[in-house]
């Protein structure tokens, strides 16, 4: 089959969604299909730009290429999944979340700050309600995304999990003297919450942060918090790291901290499980909660510095328990039978 994978993203910003799109293309190719990735650039501000992008997507014609039919289009991210195609599948990574549950979220809110925010929010919601059902097949990348689609748009779909990139290369090493937090540095990932928790820990816990900042402003906020809370000697700021470095840091950490605000999926949880590491997450973190079983494969804290500090202290002081939780996480990953073969089969059926 000729398959187009269409997604959208912000130029110079790379995260899990971009990696997933590439991996899907690779999996389709491995399964013997001609697959290509189309990337639609997206700028989400001012709000009036968003309907512009929706319309731009609607005006694209991806039904043929040089007279040859494109058999299937797979849409991943807003607004790319709104591109019309007679044989479309949507694997919903996420909708435009500030038009939904992040509308008035204290960290991530965006549209709400603009005079035309409310009308654009409703325009986005209507476009989703009207146009997502055009697809022949719709899956969500996880239960959290599926729940949100049902709650806000009244559209019921199943979730379809995918493995992280190079899943087979993750391995387990020693339990080092640090927690690992790999993620884009941005408000919804809550690096600041972890820094505040560090300042409240009873143990001399240590966290290694890896990942680039979405904006200099967000990086500066973290640096300033580290200075003010006097935790410079308990934080290591690694910035961008290679995939190999990342796997090593996973392999040798005591545990992984990943407390985002209502994350959609979060490969970090799965990568930690593949590395046999316990995951500390929060009760409002969304996607990770589909995988982390509290006190079995990790710890679920309240989204407060105090509660998160207690969780960090618990694993730091109880290393044997941390190791056991990590092993339980690896076993759970195996039980979930997450594979690209399954993803490809579902999206092409």
């Amino acid at each position, binding site marked *: 089959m000729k398959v187009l994978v269409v997604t959208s993203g912000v130029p110079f910003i790379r995260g899990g969604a971009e990696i997933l799109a590439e991996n899907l293309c690779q999996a389709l190719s491995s399964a013997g299909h001609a697959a290509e990735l189309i990337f639609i650039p997206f700028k989400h501000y001012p709000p009036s730009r968003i309907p512009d992008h929706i319309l731009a997507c609607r005006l694209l014609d991806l039904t043929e290429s040089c007279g040859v039919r494109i058999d299937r289009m797979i849409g991943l991210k807003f607004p790319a999944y709104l591109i019309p195609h007679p044989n479309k599948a949507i694997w919903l990574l996420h909708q435009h979340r500030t038009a939904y549950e992040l509308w008035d979220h204290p960290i991530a809110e965006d549209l709400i700050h603009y005079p035309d925010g409310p009308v654009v929010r409703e325009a986005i919601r209507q476009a989703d309600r*009207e146009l997502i059902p055009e697809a022949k097949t719709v899956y969500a990348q996880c239960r959290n995304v599926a729940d949100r689609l049902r709650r806000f748009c009244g559209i019921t779909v199943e979730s379809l999990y995918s493995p992280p990139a190079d899943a087979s290369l993750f391995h387990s090493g020693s339990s080092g003297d640090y927690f690992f937090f790999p993620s884009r540095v941005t408000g919804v990932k809550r690096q600041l919450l972890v820094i505040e928790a560090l300042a409240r820990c009873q143990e001399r816990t240590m966290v290694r942060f890896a990942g680039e900042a979405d904006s200099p402003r967000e990086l500066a906020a973290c640096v300033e918090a580290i200075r003010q809370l006097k935790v410079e000697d308990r934080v290591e700021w690694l910035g961008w790291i290679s995939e190999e470095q990342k796997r090593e840091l996973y392999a040798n950490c005591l545990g992984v901290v990943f407390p985002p605000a209502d994350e959609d999926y979060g490969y970090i949880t799965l990568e930690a499980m593949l590395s046999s590491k316990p995951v500390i997450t929060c009760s409002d973190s969304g996607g990770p909660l589909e995988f982390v079983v509290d006190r079995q494969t990790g710890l679920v804290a309240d989204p407060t510095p105090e509660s998160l500090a207690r969780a960090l202290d618990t694993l730091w002081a109880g290393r044997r328990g941390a190791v056991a939780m990590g092993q339980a996480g690896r076993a759970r990953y195996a039980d979930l039978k997450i594979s690209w073969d399954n993803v490809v089969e579902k999206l092409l059926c």
Partner: protein
Amino acid sequence: MLKINWFSPLPPARSGIAQNFATQLLPALTRRHELVLWTDQDQVAPEVQSMARVARYVPAAPPWREINDSTISIYHLGNQPDLHGGIWQVSARQPGLIVLHDLRLHDFFFTYWVHYRKDRPSYLAALERWYGGEGWRAGEAFCRGGISPESMAREFPLTREATRGALGVVTHSSRALAELKETPECPTTVLDHPYVAAGESRYRQWLAARRAAPHPPYRLVVFGYLNRNRRLDAVLEALAGIPEREQFRLDVCGQLWDEGHIRTQIERLGLSALVRLLGFLPEGLVEQKLSTADLAINLRYPSMGEASGSQLQFWDYGLPTLVTRTDWYASLPEETVAFVRPDREVEDIQSHLRAFLVDPAAFRAMGERGRQSLANHDPEKYVDALVNFATKVLRRQPLAAALALAGRIGGDLSTWLHPAASAYLMDRASQEIVTTWRGKTGGQDE
């Protein structure tokens, strides 16, 4: 329950919207819905602050984050730029529900742009937007003093400038809106201006006080915010011109647009012993004045298309009233008011005054019937209808974004593509906009 942003003049501002409309409606509205009362006034009366949260805003930089916490914004627009200028600035940037208290808003836009903002091009651009070159030229002539304000209000009311981009529009006069021929480009509804009538026993006390007063002389009253269109010159001339004038006393209550001019007129017409200028009355004196008056004179010409809160107040006191046969006033039932033709003002006023002397009871019955008609103006009914309409027009939010998008497309194409060549693109874009944003979940009645 809706959470509503309420942008309106509030007491103690000297406006009918603040003093009558808001005070009549807010108790009923705040009982059933959560309101944020947005204001750029220096002061807000304590009794209003006890009804709902008062929030302040700077019109040039409204706090959108806080505003967007509510479900809908309701903007009250009228012809007083000092009170409505800030409200209009916000309404022009965020689509909401607009309540038009005046329909002819040329005075507002002229004063706002030319006097307040010193920006004549924007005033002229608004005229050109809705009336083409003719509007632009008329605006130029008006700025030079070549056209009267009344003529501009009549020919170029700029109503659509005020309602541009709105989700919905509320007026208090269907007739005035129909005659205006400036139907907004969004759903409109007509609601009866709200009014809380006094209880029956109190009304009976007022009637007794009126009957007990010695007659003649009969007490005439002119009341409210007295601009030129309140026709006080004609009233004075009519009174001076009848031999029976000694049987009347006229009290002029309210803020005059030119007190010096009126005093000169009174003197010139020999009415000093019959006419008193009482200025803006405190609430306690209003009751005393209206309960002892015999006939109210409530003329407007030209009318700005507004419904009159004062008229409802006169009816509350059972006062017979002379009104101009124009716009909202012309839609009042014949048996509840006495009409004055705009082109025969002095003649008609004199005729009514003579008729009053002949049969005061017939006029009292007219006032009584007016009071009965207040049942249609129950604030609770108004709240129900307003909220129903607001809920309905909220469904137009996606369409508002789509229309803005259509405007941007047209604007962009016109800068680089010949109209003939852009037709295909415009057509494709229009089709997609319609498909996406005019579906079954919203805007279906457009």
